[in-house]
Structures are given as structure tokens and as C-alpha cells.
């Protein structure tokens, strides 16, 4: 049985195809560009094409992410916290702590051995704690997104940002540039500041052991290092982590499909 999870994020739409709730067949993504449902449709088409699927092959489609209600052809939608937790647990069996840093928000999640959410906390007050902030820095520091991480990693004395506001943080960074703080130190400071905010979320849910990083920032080695340096414990990050929510949604879809065909109780 093939199930699909579609994560309609604010920055990127991600899709994952899973076979029998065990094997990842394929993943694909497209930038959201303000239209989650059409990006989602495209991701779905990309996946179908790559795996030569025909209508009817897909047993179940589960959406997640902020646009989960915006995709009409879904059978179920789950929150992206639930799905990220599930996905992370699949990617890294036994992990108990998941940190999801996406475009708009960061979440710390504590999960059970089966990937069920036990506790979670997300940044609410301020936007300075997520990926969009890195994108902005890249824009006005004129460092391409692809180079941000690599440049940051050569930092000697990272310069932390104290401002809690994403907008005022920009000014602070500009001041740092004016004061001739080396660019790598500023960049690493950005990642470290993100990591510190994430750390306070993690402390709220309580962390004791290794953390699994998911969301768009898994691609950034500097972010991974910053989290590790901040929390002083192992960070597990793999590039599939960006698809954790999509994978989790597909897994939950699979569970659901089994239940529907089986005798178990029905929700709703």
C-alpha cells in the first residue's frame, strides 16, 4: 500500500511517498510562493511521475503544515507538530526530542518511543526565531543562501544578537558590520541566536538526551553546529529531516488506512 504525505509549509511544500508504512519511496519539494495548493498539486505530480503512479495507486493522502486545510483532495489532515514528531521518530528510531526549525516558526517537541507527541512548545511572540530570519540576513548582508552556512562555519568569535525583534535585529547586525565585526562572526551569531531561542523552547519541554533536528534548517551545517554548541549534546540531522513532516503524515495516513480497512473504531 502506498500512502502520501504532503507538507504544505509557508516556505516550501514537501511531499513523501511511503510504501506499507515502512519504506520511503520518494520525496519532492517545491517553493510555496504564496499558493500552497497549486504547489502541492505540482509536488504530487512530480512524485507520481517519478514513481510511475497511476490514479488508484495512492491508498491515502494526508496533508500537514500550515496549508493543510487548503488542499481539497486530502483524506485527512494532521498538525505539522504531530507529523514532524512521527517522521522524526521514523528517521531516527528511538529519538525522544525533536527540534523543528521551519520558515516561520520553531518548535521543540518531546515524543514517546512510538513518535507520539508528549509535549511541545513553539515560538509565538516574536518572529526572530526561525528560518525566515536567516533568509533576510542573507538578503541584506548580500550573502547567497547557499553560502551562508559555509561562511558562518569559519567564524572565530561569533557575535550574538541581543535584540528579540527580527526587525531591530537587522539594525543590530548592520551596526555590527559598521563596527567591522568579521562577516563569518556575524553569520554564526545569527545561527547561534536562533539556537538559543530554540534552546529555551527545548528547556520548556525538558530535554535530557540527543536531539533530532528537522525542518528546512537541517540543510545548514552551521545551524546543526550552533544547536549542538548551545545544548551541549548530540544533534542528529539528516537531509531527509526536511521531509520529516511529510513522511510523518504519510505514516499516519498509512495507519489510518489500515484502521479503515480493519475493524478498529472510527474517529469523527
Amino acid at each position, binding site marked *: 500500500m502506498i500512502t502520501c504525505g504532503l507538507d504544505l509549509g*509557508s516556505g516550501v511544500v514537501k511531499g513523501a511517498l511511503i510504501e506499507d508504512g515502512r519504506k520511503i519511496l520518494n520525496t519532492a519539494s517545491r517553493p510555496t510562493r504564496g*499558493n500552497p495548493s497549486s504547489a502541492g498539486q505540482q509536488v504530487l505530480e512530480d512524485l507520481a511521475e517519478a514513481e510511475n503512479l497511476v490514479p488508484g495507486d495512492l491508498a491515502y493522502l494526508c496533508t500537514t503544515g500550515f496549508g493543510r486545510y487548503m488542499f481539497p483532495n486530502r483524506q485527512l489532515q494532521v498538525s505539522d507538530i504531530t507529523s514532524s514528531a512521527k517522521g522524526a521518530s521514523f528517521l531516527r528510531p528511538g529519538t525522544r526530542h525533536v527540534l523543528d526549525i521551519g520558515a*516561520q516558526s520553531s518548535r521543540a517537541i518531546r515524543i514517546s518511543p512510538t513518535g507520539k507527541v508528549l509535549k511541545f512548545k513553539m515560538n509565538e511572540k*516574536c518572529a*526572530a526565531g526561525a528560518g525566515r530570519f536567516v533568509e533576510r540576513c542573507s538578503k541584506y548582508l548580500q550573502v547567497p543562501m547557499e553560502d551562508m552556512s559555509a561562511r558562518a562555519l569559519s567564524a572565530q568569535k561569533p557575535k550574538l544578537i541581543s535584540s528579540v525583534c*527580527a526587525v531591530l535585529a537587522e*539594525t543590530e547586525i548592520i551596526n555590527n558590520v*559598521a563596527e567591522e565585526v568579521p562577516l563569518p562572526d556575524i553569520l554564526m551569531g545569527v545561527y547561534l541566536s536562533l539556537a538559543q531561542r530554540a534552546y529555551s523552547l527545548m528547556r520548556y519541554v525538558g530535554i535530557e538526551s540527543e536531539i533530532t533536528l528537522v525542518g528546512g534548517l537541517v540543510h545548514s551545517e552551521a545551524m546543526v553546529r550552533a544547536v549542538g554548541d548551545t545544548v551541549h549534546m548530540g544533534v542528529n540531522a539528516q537531509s531527509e529531516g526536511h521531509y520529516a513532516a511529510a513522511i510523518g503524515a504519510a505514516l499516519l495516513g498509512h495507519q489510518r488506512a489500515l484502521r479503515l480497512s480493519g475493524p478498529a473504531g472510527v474517529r469523527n
Partner: protein
Amino acid sequence: MKAAAGIDVGSTTAKCVILRDGELLGKSLNPVGVNIVRDAEEALRLALVDARLDRSEVAFVTGTGYGRYKIAFGQLTVTEISCHARGAHFLFPRTRLVIDIGGQDTKAIRVNERGEVADFAMNDKCAAGTGRFLDVCAGALGYDVAEIGPLSLEARHPVKVTSTCTVFAESEVTSHVSRGKDPKDILAGLHASIANRSLSLLQRVGIEPEVTFTGGVSRNEGMVRALSGRLRMPINVSPLSQYMGAIGAALAGADRLRGGTAS
């Protein structure tokens, strides 16, 4: 009498004017980048070019704005609050209330009949409701800041924008777009929300006519209308309003020249 220059180094732009006997000889406006000292120098240089003056003809340089301490070549620094008050009162002598909306903050300044600051209030640590807010939202909608004011005036069903946070407003804007709202209506909503926030700031110092609107955002006609509508009174706006801080600074310098205190 010799000329006096005022340089206002703000969070977004550096402005410079050169005055002699209350006459505007030259002005300049350039963005602030990472090197504030250089930007301030550049502002003065451009204004000198505009005025066709030589540096030696400017006897007094006053710095104002957030970057005022970086203007090492000036003789005096004054806060932009005093300067906006001074400038606004100079151009509109019956001004009793100045609202200055710049790139990073908003100020309400009550002035007395002599153009002195009687009271003032500024927005809190948050960047909400400032020029930056409009810049970001304009960007999210794919417009230039100069376009959004006029567009907002064409709105028919303004939407309600509740997010006070600049960053979250951006996503609110995107979500309105994805729900198919007319950008003009969204813009009108944004302008209304800033007008409302500004009003609450004006309330702190007390609203009294005449009101003069200064700072970069006063160039935005939509904002002028929104504010005037909310205040239910006309507002003075000068084409020079973004230079108001610099004008005030130059005037303060001119005072010193007259008083013979320039060194």
C-alpha cells in the same frame, strides 16, 4: 552670514540640508548602509554639490538622528526630536503637534508656540507601526514603497490587519493574498492599522491643531489621508518633510552661529 548644514542620520536614510538665513541652498538624501560615518560624509558632500557650495562656506554642521554620534566632523549634536519640532515649527509656525514616522520609530512631539518641545512620546521597543513595517509589507505584495500609498487610496473594502508585529504582518499579508483579497484593500488595512497605532501615541502627548507630519513615511499619501481621517483634522505636510530633522538641525546650528558660539 555663513551657511549651516544639518545632517540627519536615521536608521534607513541620511539626509542633509544646507541653510542660509532661512533659505534652503541644497539638500541630499541617501540610504544608510553599513558605514555610517561614510554615509554622513556622503550626505554632506551631495548637499554641497546640490547647493554649489564649497565646504568652507558652511560654518556650522549639526548632526542628529540615531547616528548623530558618528558625525565626527560636526560641531553639535541634537536629538531628532528637538530637530523635527524645530523644523516643523519653522515651516508651519502654527504647529502644535508633530508626528514623525521614520524607518524604525514613530514619535509624537508636542511643541509650544516657540517651536520648543513641550512633550514627546515614542513607540516602544517594537518596530511595529513604522516605516519598516510598510517597507516589509510592500515587499510582500511586490510593490515599491512609493507606490503603496496611492494604491491604498483606491481600496473599496479595506481588510482588517491585526498583527502589530512587522514580521507577522508580513505573513498576515500573504495569507490575505492567498485568500484572494485585493492588494489595495490589504494596503488600506495596513495604513489604517498604522494610523491607529500612531493615534494612540499622539494621544499620549495630547492632540492639538495644527498637526504636522514629518519623516519619510509622510511622503506616503495614503498614510497622510489615513492619519488625517483618524484625527479628523487636516495635517500639514511639506515636500521637504523627510528632511525635517535635518532642517531642524541646521536651524539649531544657525542659532549658534548667530549667538557666536561656533568654534
